[in-house]
């Protein structure tokens, strides 16, 4: 039995302007000790998926429409609020994007860590403080025993993110959901933060869901990857499968868009167009309007199924695009076609 098994999870937001289908039919599985990367651009439903797992979606306007979130076989969506509370922060923890605002500015770091420990464990203050100091040492806060008495505003952004990680990990959760944990940090701190998470995982076998839009981070950290676009999973598989043998036109365009260090005087590749408006039903392949491949057939049917190609490597596309043809040549053809009427 996998640690986490999400099946056909759909979450939408019922706004006055209409229903926004932020995440549709998301399925994912995660074993103990595994790392799953979820990549996609802003608004592709990465965060909504994570928030739905922990039921942190503000309801209303959010609503989890259907699906199951099986954690060790138990469906989290069927648990009561108080049962859910005993899982949050204890079995499943979350790290947020912005370390600057994720800590309560009026409370000492020690107070906040002790609270996080004592909410879940019946432990006296002194023991909790010791545990808090150990947790800070584990995330590489120097001189933790004295720094623990500080207030958040006395720490730098990178240090605050480490405190957040310490707080998320202090109860030894089985699953850590990191929602863009490195986006707000500079590159050297990014690497340190990722190392802390990896080290923890190696030592305690914590499973990790890493949400990011940085493909480099995914390649270096994750065992499995899901690529999301317009609220759907468009491609999933092991990191090797998705990175060395990408199949979906979106994944391939994304890779093409990574700036290379060698190229000089070359315009950066961007994917033309904008993601679809999720308040309207998305017909056919969600990426079709922006697909660099020649438009073969109008897409008006339901979304294509996520089909398995080989050994767990799944793709959801219309099937008309040539998966073997390099994106570069497709683009070159486009340019030629435009120039010669």
């Amino acid at each position, binding site marked *: 039995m996998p640690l986490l098994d999400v099946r056909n999870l759909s979450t939408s937001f019922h706004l006055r302007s209409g229903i926004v289908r932020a995440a549709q039919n998301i399925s994912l599985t995660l074993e103990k000790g595994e790392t799953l990367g979820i990549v996609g651009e802003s608004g592709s439903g990465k965060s909504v998926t994570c928030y739905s797992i922990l039921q*942190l979606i503000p309801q209303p306007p959010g609503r989890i429409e259907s699906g199951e979130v099986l954690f060790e076989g138990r469906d989290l969506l069927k648990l009561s609020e108080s049962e859910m509370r005993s899982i949050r922060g204890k079995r499943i923890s979350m790290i*947020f994007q912005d370390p600057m605002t994720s800590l309560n500015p009026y409370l000492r770091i020690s107070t906040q860590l002790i609270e996080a420990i004592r909410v879940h464990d019946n432990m006296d203050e002194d023991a909790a403080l010791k545990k808090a100091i150990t947790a800070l040492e584990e995330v590489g806060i120097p001189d933790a025993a004295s720094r623990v008495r500080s207030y958040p505003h006395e720490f730098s952004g990178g240090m605050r993110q480490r405190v957040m990680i310490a707080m998320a990990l202090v109860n030894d959760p089985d699953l850590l959901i990191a929602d863009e944990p490195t986006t707000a940090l500079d590159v050297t701190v990014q690497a340190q933060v990722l190392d802390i998470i990896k080290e923890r995982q190696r030592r305690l076998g914590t499973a990790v869901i890493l949400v990011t839009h940085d493909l480099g981070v995914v390649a270096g950290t994750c065992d499995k990857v899901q690529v999301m676009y317009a609220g759907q999973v468009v491609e999933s598989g092991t990191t090797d499968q998705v990175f060395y043998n990408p199949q979906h036109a979106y994944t391939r365009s994304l890779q093409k868009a990574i700036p290379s260090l060698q190229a000089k005087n070359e315009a950066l590749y961007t994917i033309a167009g904008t993601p679809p408006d999720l308040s309207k039903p998305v017909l056919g392949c969600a990426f079709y309007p922006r697909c660099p491949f020649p438009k073969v057939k109008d897409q008006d049917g339901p979304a294509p199924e996520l089909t398995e190609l080989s050994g767990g490597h799944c793709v959801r596309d219309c099937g008309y695009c040539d998966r073997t043809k390099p994106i570069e040549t497709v683009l070159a053809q486009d340019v030629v076609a435009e120039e010669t009427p």
Partner: protein
Amino acid sequence: MSRTADIVSATEERLSAPLAVEEFEKGSSLWDDAWHRLKRNRLAMISLFLFIAIVLFCVVGPLLSPYDGEQQDLLKGAQGPSGEHWFGTDTLGRDLMVRTMEGGRISLLVGMVATFVALMIGVVYGATAGYLGGKVDAVMMRIVDTLYALPFTIFVILLMVAFGRSLWLIFVAIGAVEWLSMARIVRAGVIGLKKQEFVEAAVSLGYSHTRIILRHLIPNVLGPVIVIATLTVPAVMLLEAFLSFLGLGVQPPNASWGVLINEGQQNMEIFPWLLMFPAFFFALTLFSLNFLGDGLRDALDPKSAKD
């Protein structure tokens, strides 16, 4: 060249200065920062000491005085200030200084207790409405709007008629009016805060709603709440004086500054000191609290300060 040398030597000096380890380990909270800013505001500090002095004068004063506020001496009625009676005596021969101190006790008590009641109700009510949001919030705030629309004087007269006159009723009446603005301010603050990630993080750590409201939201709105509370105390004291002036408030022989001012103005032309002394202390208290409130606002929310 010399400028560079200056900078270098200044930097070296700063680096070689022993680190204030004690202070660093303790950590300085946002409250400490606000206190430092308040200390630099001279007007607010003078007001603070003045207010403390007035409170001490009213609370400790009667214990040291040889007179009793209710002890009448008709032979010495309505005498001007003298070495024997520093503030003079009233028409019934009671020592005005003790009367002023005892009146101050009642006025300050009403001001603080009613503000405290308003604070408790307002903060919990406003935080709950703001945190829960949606329909609950809408209903709770419409109740506040409705109560706001009640004419205060009529409300108090109704209470007096229905339940008789007592000091506690004044607390209830004033508290019932003053918590409304407190609730609105706290609600606005909480709505702004609950979108912040630390609240989301608190939910993700498995904290209950009650814990989040009490431990994480309310402490963060305490700044404006303290300012409003400081400004509410004088407002409440004014209300009490107003009620007492109309004869709806504190009943003789108990005195409050409102009652004393009322008695004083009846004989204003013949015995002006009967009005002057209580009015002076009352005005001084209101001034100091208002200046202190302004200072606190600047200290707790430096962004809103004018300069």
